[in-house]
Structures are given as C-alpha cells and as structure tokens.
C-alpha cells in the first residue's frame, strides 16, 4: 500500500515570490525520509506540495511534477481532495477538532468523506488508536473532548486521525517540536512502526531526531534571505551524518552555520 514519490523540477511560489526552486528527488516506499535545513529554506513548503496543501495558502502555486507511483499529482484532471486522501499529513502543532470527542476526531476523516460502513467504524477507530499507541491511554474516555488530552496525546490523536483514512503516504511537519522528550520518544517509536505500512516524510529541526528515525535525509538550504530554497543533497541518513558529499551539509550538521 505504501507508494513511491518521484519529484522532478518542482518550484513553489507564494504569489510572485519563489519559495523553493527546481527540486528533484525520489522518496522510497516503506521508509522514513527526513528533511533538514535552516528555517525559511522551504522544507515545509516542499512537504505541503506533496499533498497539494500548498495551494490552500492564498497565492500558493506550484510548477513541476510530483509522481505518486505513476500518477502526476499536478496532472490535468487530478482532484486535490483525492490526492489528500492518499497523502495524509500531521502538523507541527497538535490540532484535534475542538468540537469533537476522541472517537469522533479519529472517525472524522471517514465520516466527513462519507466513505465508511457504520459497523466498521468502531474497529477502524480502535485500530487507528492502537496504531498510534494511544489506545490504552484513551480507551476509557473515547467520548471525552479530544482537546482535553495532553499535548503529546493530542499529537498522537492527530496521527491516529491521519492513519484512519488509510493513506499511502504520511507527511509530518515537525511533529515533535511542540512536545516534551517523553512524548517525542513515543512518537519516534511510532514512526518506526508506521514505516512498515506507510511512506513517511518528516520535517525536523532536530538533527538527532533525523538521525534516529530516518532512512534517508535530505538537506535544504537557501543562499540568502529572499532567495528560493534549494535541495542541496539527499542520501542515506548514515552517509549524510558521517560523510556528506557537500561541504554545506557538513557545516550545517556540525553546527558551524545556520
């Protein structure tokens, strides 16, 4: 079920400002790919182009190709709504729906898409919550509001919500940056389990995290403020962190700039 992503010649714009320029990379299925780089270099923007969330921002525009297996996400006649069902997303700040209970939050994707059988809903919610390692903590309070959980639990609830619709790819935009180390560990463990089933792409500012969870790492950088961000290199995580082929990557990782 996991799918491969092939990006070629991708640029993204905010109105007339070009945020990222000419990015090409391949993202392997059933693996974790981490994006690192200084703030403002376009990691998140690039991530959002992978499920057509970039164009939700007013003025957002994309050029280039993103192939999900053999379909171009930006091809003619592609419905962004269907793309987002295939490519799920977890955001930086936990954002459970405040009007919904824990159960309803997980069921939200299915219910709002109208694509479910009533009898299966309970099972899917349980499976998703178990998949997000949250079931044991919330099984007695499924009908309580989702916003009453702790920050780390809320983030895992959001992951459960994202995997409940069975996407092929899961995008994570700094999923741990608002969490404490213990919740972070829980989510990192979870990422390790989820990669058996999904293609995972994670943006992180935490280099140790990238080294711990990812199989491949991409380094993004920008030459100056106001210039578009670029992909500097992508390689196996081990190689990026031990012996990168570009000097800038080594400088960034060892903390010499950025």
């Amino acid at each position: 079920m996991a799918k491969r992503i092939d990006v070629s010649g991708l640029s993204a714009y905010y109105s007339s400002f070009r945020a990222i320029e000419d990015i090409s990379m391949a993202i392997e299925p059933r693996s974790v790919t981490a994006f690192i780089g200084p703030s403002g270099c376009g990691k998140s923007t690039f991530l959002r182009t992978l499920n057509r969330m970039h164009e939700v921002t007013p003025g957002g525009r994309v050029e280039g190709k993103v192939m999900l297996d053999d379909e171009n996400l930006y091809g003619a006649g592609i419905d962004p709504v269907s793309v987002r069902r295939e490519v799920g997303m977890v955001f930086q700040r936990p954002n459970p729906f405040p009007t919904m209970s824990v159960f309803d939050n997980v069921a939200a994707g299915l219910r709002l898409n109208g694509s479910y059988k009533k009898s299966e809903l309970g099972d899917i919610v349980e499976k998703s919550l178990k998949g997000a390692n949250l079931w044991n903590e919330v099984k007695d309070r499924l009908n309580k509001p989702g916003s009453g959980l702790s920050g780390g639990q809320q983030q895992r609830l959001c992951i459960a919500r994202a995997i409940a619709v069975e996407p092929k790819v899961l995008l994570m935009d700094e999923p741990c940056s608002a969490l404490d180390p213990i919740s972070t560990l829980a989510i990192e463990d979870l990422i390790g389990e989820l990669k058996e089933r999904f293609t995972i792409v994670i943006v992180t500012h935490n280099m140790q995290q990238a080294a711990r969870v990812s199989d491949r790492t991409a380094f993004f950088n920008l030459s100056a403020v106001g210039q578009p961000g670029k992909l500097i290199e992508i390689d196996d995580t081990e190689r990026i962190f031990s012996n990168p082929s570009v000097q800038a990557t080594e400088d960034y990782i060892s903390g010499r700039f950025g």
Partner: protein
Amino acid sequence: MSQTVNDRRPSSLQGATLPKWSPYAIAAGSIALGLGISAAAGLDSKIQWGLMAAVFFVAASYGIAAKVEGKRQAKDRVATSLVWVAFLLAVIPLVSLIWETVKRGVKVLDVYFLTHSMGLVTDTEPGGGIYHAILGTLEQVGIATVISVPIGILTAIYLVEYGRGRLAQAVTFFVDVMTGIPSIVAGLFVLSFWIIILDMGYSGFAGAMALTILMLPVIVRSTEEMLKLVPNELREASLALGVPKWRTITKVVLPTSIGGITTGVMLAIARITGETAPVLLLVWGSTFINTDPFDGPQASLPMYIYQQYANSGGSGAAYDRAWAAALTLIAFVMILNLAARGIARWKAPKTGR
C-alpha cells in the same frame, strides 16, 4: 515624596502598602465631602455632589497612594479608580432605567394584559392589552430573522472562506455602508419600493423587510468575526484528511464557531426588536389582532408604546400601558440575550478532561 519611600528601603523589594479597605474608606470620604460641600453651598442638584465625589475619589486615591506607596502604585490606583468611576457612571442610567420601567410597568402588567388586544378600548380608557402587539413583534422579527440569518451567514462564509479580490472588497464595503443606514431610511426605502411602486398594502411583511435590511449587516459582521477566530490549522487538518472544502466548512468551521454566531444572531434580533420607525411607516399599527403578517396592518411593541404615549392626550391609563409594554419589550430582549449566552456556553468547544 516617592523618593523618601525609595530612600527608606533602598535594597528591599518590599514597599509600604495601603490597607485593603483603603479604597472603600477613600470612597466614603469623597462621598461625604461631596455631600457636605453641596449642602453647604445649597446646591439642590443630585448630580453635582456625585460628580464632585468622583473627582475627589480619583484625586484622593492618587494623593494618598503617592504619599504612602510611591508614584507607580499611585498611577495604578488612579487607573483603578477611574475604571470604577466609569463603571458606576455607566451603571447608574442603566439601573435607573430598569428601576423606573419596572416600577411603572408592573402596575397593569398581568395575564389579562398579555392575552388581550386593545380591541375597542379607546386610548384614554383603562383596560385592553398588548397581545396583538406581541404577536406582531414576534411575526415581524421572526420573518426578518428567517430571511436575514441564512443570507447573512452565507455572505460571511463567502467573505471569510472564499472571497478574494474585487467582489469580496465590494461586499465588505456595502456591508459596512449598510451598518450605518438609519432605520428610518430603511423604512422609507421599503415604503417607496414595496408600497408606493409595487402598490402593496401595509403589512407585517413590509416591516419585516425593512428590519431585514437593518439586521443583515449586523449578522454578516458578527459571523465574519467569529469565522475568522477559527484557527486555520483546523481547516488545514480537515483538508489534509481529504475532506472537501464545503464539508470542512459545514462540519468543522461552523460547529467550532456556532456559539459565537448564535450570540451574534441573538444580538441582531435584540437590536431590531426595538425598532420603531420602519414599523411605524410600513406596518401602520392596529388595535385588533391580525395574525396574518402578509395582509393588513399589524401592531408591534415599540409602536404600541409610541402610540399609547402620543395618541392618548396624557391619559394615565395609556401611560401605564405604555410602561407595561416597555417592560415586556425589555424582558423579551433580555430573555433572548440570556438564551444566546446559554447557547454560546453549551456549544462552545469543550476543553474539560
């Protein structure tokens, strides 16, 4: 003076503080002083001693606090006392209005009054009631609400969720202009269009149309503000699940803001319930019960109050009825407000565990 405080305890974080009861003592002293001066000077106005007391209160708060606590705390106390004075000045007219209305209104307000029309009771006689006016108000306000709530909420959704560029700017501009339309102008507009050009008769519906014009911008504005308060992250979370935009709006954005939207609608209803001018022009008024808002003149509470006052030639019975109707109107608006608060609290996003 403040320097002495600083000099006395140069290294301490602790400073002298006035006792907790001091604001009350200062207030009591100021009132006594105000009363004393007005008695001595022989002023018979009830307002002057109060204003004097307010000025003394603010000044004394500053002076005493500056002497004991230092300049910064003194400024703090001045701000606090100004807030209190402003609060009291705002509350006095409100309380006296309600007091006066209740005192005079309860005289004839009973079940008979609420369930009977004026019928053949002439304006100078005692008796009669406001059933026909309550009915008219409910129908006119109800029709105006039914028309303007969907249009207003949909307009606000367009402005917040979809509106880009010229059209949205134009809509925002016209909504702002509509907010400033005096009610008599709305009434005259419907009068010239509906009654003079289209040659329709006076009816509750004509009044409801004018009320709609007044209500619409209030609903658009308040709903817009409420929708803007919904965090963008929730919209993105829903979109990222592959939920279409229209379902995101109906199932995530609206439920999150429904409490605030309801409050806005209720306040808009409260605002138009008291409108007299357009009703006077378009509904014409009647002393009989007319249940059909689409045909023939009706009454309404604010117009009833006006007519009892204006057409009765100073008859005490009519004045009593006017006060009782005013009390009913205030109670009606207050119940709506309480209902709005209840709904807002009930529907507000829950945070409890």
